[in-house]
């Protein structure tokens, strides 16, 4: 610490004196260029969330410290607790957090409205702060849209991008001579063929309220449904009714018993136990399917893009990112960290560990291709899904409350209530929520 401070002082003196000692030391002429060492000696505090992306990131933070000469301290909390801590710290205006890991699909609009994200547009445009290798346009369009607010301000650098895909049992599909569904119309007849209880259930999707709201758009989007039209709720449109009807009917008729309260944990457990022929969920759950210690279906799982429908072809995506706190006293230094965490080298490392990212170039990187951690069709399905990615949840302040509203409607549907009826109630509650929190 002492040595570091000393070297910084000497360094500053050198710059002040305008001494150019050699090719590896800054000269006034090169001071405009980018360097990682610019904020040498500063200390950053990060609030991180327990997440596969963060697990990989944490291991390499010391590399950033030696690269930048900064000291990094951080705290990693489970997602809900991190959000609560964030709310408390920011409401109290403590200024203690410099950068944070943000789940944009939940926090984007709320944190933006509260003014907690420092807009990164100027930093990104500043060649002295952004490495020429960073390449903002390397992020997929869906990932860029996911971190950009309605007023054009960029709230975070996209880190992890989750996409919904189809997981299916290759052996069961081959035995019946069928292939993964291409369109929504294929879905039900296909599931019906595979359904052979109690040994095998046709399909599993999340039933538990709130959790199911991230899976529902896998059916809703291709059906042509949306959440909002001109700022008004449209949960009672005919596309919504058709989508909810299909989603709930599949689970009611071909899902394992008790599916109404299944979160991803129960869903993937029944899939890994070999009880289910097909499962649609976030692509990143796949790493456990290929883990022989947890899964009975290792090597039998195929991966495919979601089916298309009358409304088009989509994959609901969910984005997390590294954001800079608007209350930080070291915004530019914190931005340097966010940049490092999402640059090409870091993202390749994430993908090598099986964590999907929204950077196009990483998918073709030689390193990833040389040592694939997952089957080839996983990479194909993931990459193809990112290309048709669309933000899976409405971008509003009350995301959690919306998820409960639609979540309850889906659960009631699974238990047999007519789709039109439950959606009429959901529409009323959702519009009420929008009236209270938007505008």
């Amino acid at each position: 610490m002492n040595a570091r401070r000393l070297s910084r002082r000497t360094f500053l003196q050198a710059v002040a004196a305008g001494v150019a000692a050699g090719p590896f030391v800054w000269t006034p002429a090169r001071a405009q260029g980018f360097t990682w060492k610019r904020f040498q000696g500063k200390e950053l505090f990060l609030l991180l969330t327990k997440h596969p992306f963060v697990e990989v990131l944490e291991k390499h933070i010391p590399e950033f410290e030696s690269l930048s000469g900064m000291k990094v301290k951080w705290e990693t909390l489970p997602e809900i607790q991190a959000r609560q801590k964030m709310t408390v710290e920011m409401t109290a205006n403590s200024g203690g957090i410099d950068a944070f890991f943000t789940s944009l699909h939940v926090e984007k609009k709320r944190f933006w409205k509260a003014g907690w994200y420092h807009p990164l547009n100027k930093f990104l445009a500043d060649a002295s702060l952004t490495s020429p290798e960073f390449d903002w346009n390397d992020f997929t369009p869906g990932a860029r849209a996911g971190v950009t607010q309605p007023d054009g301000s960029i709230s975070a650098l996209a880190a992890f991008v989750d996409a919904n895909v189809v997981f299916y049992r290759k052996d069961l599909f081959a035995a019946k001579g069928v292939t993964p569904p291409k369109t929504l119309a294929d879905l039900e007849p296909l599931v019906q063929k595979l359904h052979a209880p109690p040994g095998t259930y046709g399909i599993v999707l999340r039933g538990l309220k709130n959790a199911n709201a991230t899976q529902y758009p896998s059916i809703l989007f291709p059906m042509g449904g949306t959440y909002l039209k001109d700022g008004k709720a449209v949960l009672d449109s005919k596309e919504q009714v058709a989508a909810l009807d299909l989603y709930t009917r599949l689970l009611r008729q071909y899902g394992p018993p008790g599916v109404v309260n299944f979160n991803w944990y129960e869903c993937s457990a029944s899939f890994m136990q070999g009880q289910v022929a097909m499962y649609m969920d976030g692509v990143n759950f796949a790493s456990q399917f290929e883990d022989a210690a947890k899964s009975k279906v290792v090597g039998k799982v195929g991966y495919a893009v979601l089916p298309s429908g009358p409304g088009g072809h989509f994959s609901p995506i969910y984005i997390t990112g590294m954001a800079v706190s608007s209350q930080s006293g070291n915004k530019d230094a914190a931005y340097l960290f966010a940049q490092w965490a999402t640059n090409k080298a870091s993202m390749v490392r994430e993908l090598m560990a099986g964590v999907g990212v929204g950077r196009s170039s990483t998918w073709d990187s030689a390193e990833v291709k040389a040592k694939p951690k997952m089957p080839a069709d996983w990479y194909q399905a993931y990459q193809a899904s990112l290309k048709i990615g669309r933000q899976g949840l409405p971008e509003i302040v009350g995301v959690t409350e919306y998820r409960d509203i639609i979540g309850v409607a889906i659960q009631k549907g699974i238990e047999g209530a007519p789709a039109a009826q439950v959606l009429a109630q959901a529409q009323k509650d959702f519009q009420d929520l929008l009236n209270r929190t938007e505008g």
Partner: protein
Amino acid sequence: MLLVAVIIVYPIVYTGWMSLQEWFASSLTRPRFIGLANYGKIVFGDPRFRKAVVRTLYFTLVAVAAETLLGVAMALLFNREFWGRGLLRTLAILPMVATPTAIALVFVMMYHPTLGVANYLVTSVGLSPWRWTYSSSTALYALALVDVWQWTPLIMLIALAGLASLPREPYEAAHLDGASTWQAFWHITLPLLRPTLVVAILFRAIDALKTFDIIFVMTQGGPANASETINLLLFNQAFSYFNMGYAASMAVALFAVVMGSSLLLIKVRRSTAW
């Protein structure tokens, strides 16, 4: 005294004050004073809250009734002399010692409709499998069962203490008059035990009304809000929706429900005292 004021009185007063405001914890707008509007909304305008109140009371009624019946039965059993009584009594009390969250996690696994041991037991005696917490028609009962499993011993303990202090003379007199065991229980034991039982029920009822941990861990109030009690709903309002003012008003309402039920029970106890 000052400590008490700071850690007990201040939060209560502050909750009361917050319940009169409209305040979203993450927004830049300051809390806005809206008087009794939150209370108006929970009483007249929020069917979700009304249902939660009914559910809370129903859950308490089912759980505490079952616990009282079983607890008294167990107390009568353990009040007799038999070999191994001490050991069995200790074992019977064990559930009370366990942490609710840990128990809830174990029950989640046991209740799993296809992989759980609960359905294995049910089907092995020839019944068709149940949905337990995985259906909105049975979730509340499945949760009450966990509560019964854990807290029946408490009623048993208190009833046992009550039984130990009963006088012997009435029984001897009844025996001479030719009363059956059932008559002795119904006309002597139960009336004498009643004040003790009311206290036990009061303890349990207060606890059951504010049950949170097992419900939160096992169903999060689902499926489709079928097990959402007042406590779950107010947690959601405060920490999922960040709707602090509204949640505070619910907390005050929950306090009123607990207080009201307790007063009612205490009144019952007074009327039986002699």
